[in-house]
């Protein structure tokens, strides 16, 4: 029998995976993909909680609404983020965070 905890565990592992990508990788595009994994982990736990908090046979739709809006906002954020990466690439010809050292004290 699959329980809520199994879903939460998978979601937690996915979040940690995304976090590892953000912390350890040096390529901005990959860091960005790690961010998407983290957001998706939050979505998975939200949907699992929504299904778990069932009332009268109906899931708790508040959780699913959150996921709906997170997906939309994430799409807008991806568009903006990739535009920023393009602007940076035009100015610096790099997508490696270690090359970002104009601003240092």
């Amino acid at each position, binding site marked *: 029998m699959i329980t809520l905890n199994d879903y939460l565990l998978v979601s937690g592992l996915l979040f940690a995976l995304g976090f590892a990508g*953000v912390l350890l990788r040096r390529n901005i595009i990959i860091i960005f993909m790690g961010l998407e994994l983290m957001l998706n982990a939050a979505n998975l736990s939200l949907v699992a909680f929504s299904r778990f908090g069932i009332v009268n046979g109906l899931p708790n739709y508040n959780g699913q609404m959150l996921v709906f809006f997170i997906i939309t906002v994430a799409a807008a954020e991806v568009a903006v983020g990739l535009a920023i990466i393009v602007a940076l690439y035009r100015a610096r010809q790099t997508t490696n965070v270690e090359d970002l050292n104009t601003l240092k004290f």
Partner: protein
Amino acid sequence: MNTALNLLHLLTPESILVETILVVLIAGLFKATAQKRNMLLSLTLIGGVTAGAMLIFQPHYGNIANGMAVLDPLTRFIKVVVLGLSLITAVYAVQSNIRQHFAEYLALILFTAIGMMLLAGTENLLMIFIALEMVSIPLYLLAGFLKQSSASAEASLKYFLVGGVSAAFLLFGISLIYGTTGATSLRDLAQSAPAVTRDPLFLAGLVMAIVGFGFKVAAVPFHLWAPDVYEGAPTSSAALIASGSKVAGFLILAKFLAIGLAGAAGSAASSQLQPGWLPLLAVIAAISIVVGNLAALSQSNVKRILAYSAIAQSGYMLLGLSATGGTALISVLFYVVVYALTALGAFGVVLHVEQRRGGSQLHHFEGLHQSAPGLALCMGVFMISLAGIPPLAGFFGKFYLFAGALGSASQGGNLGLLWVVAIAITFNAVSLYYYLIVLKHVFVTPATHPAEPVTRRNAATFVTGLLAVSVFAIGLYPGVLLDPLRAAAQAANRKPVTAAPVQPK
């Protein structure tokens, strides 16, 4: 049908701002000249002032869909403040080196204003997230607006990556809080939170949400983006990041903790430590104060000094939040508003120096009192207020904050928060050093730069002067700001939630 009408009724100012944005964008399609920039600015200001007037004539209370959008006197006060800060930033923008896409720049400032107003006026976790994104996404773009400058692009990218990580943490935290309590509205959360305060999963969600907010308000150890962004972004954008987004961020953090999670506070008193958000906040506050003030000592760029000073100021504000336990927001809000006015003014002076002398290093400020005595005087007012020396507004802000911290602790029978207050006061003395270094360059060191043409008056310097006068006035008569805040907060507390005139269906 009814809901849609109520929505329009409650959010008229925001709707007016959206319309202003469309007008500005269309007007921006015509050929670019210097006059056109002034014309666009006037359009923006007309729209902004109309929205502000609408805010004042709105109904006193409102509540849609169980806290999705709320209106009460305190909310309205903060909305007016953030709108005013955004409009001042728009005035700065005309003097800054934004030459291309000026209409879009103004539009993004107004979008940020809408986001901050929505953020101030919501008590729902979902709306908090969306409004935060509505503030953050335009700010990422504003930070990277000078795309030919690699510093600006880099600042924008760093801001974006950190903002994205913080949003992910906030969301995962919200998902755990929602999962363990079943609530998305802060009022519902307040009802169900006390039952789960010992639940590790709930506490994990709480910690992750606070980490998310910690990034937004640039508290240590989530502060590393702030100096780079303040330095690299166009100065008018940095001014908005330092002032408006800070006010909105603190208001929503305060609301989240005070309304939603008052039952999960715990205790930070040194003798009776209990898990909850209070001890976490107290520790973050103490580290922010120490790290921010120490790091500011070794900076040579005034924007970076302001950034580290902002980190330390975040520490003071968090101390205020953890001290009052969320019961008395007034002293924190007073402090935040005064800080926002001061920081905005300081960035106005930096903007002037940058435009005239090509940089914001300390040596660019040398001899400012000869070339622009008025602005030098303003800078003096802002720095001394930030350092918290009487009789300026910053002093009263700190005074209320520390008094509140000691007062709330003594109610518990001991001076439990004394350790944080002691750290705060000690490092406030340290901070005096770097504020005075700035003033030394402004007033004492003779100018090594060639003399520049005498400053012509323009709107930005006028607004900077106005900010200095207001900081001075609030210092002399703290009641000017304190009384409306106090009245608004009392009115907001008296509000019977169920008797709100605009009812959710």
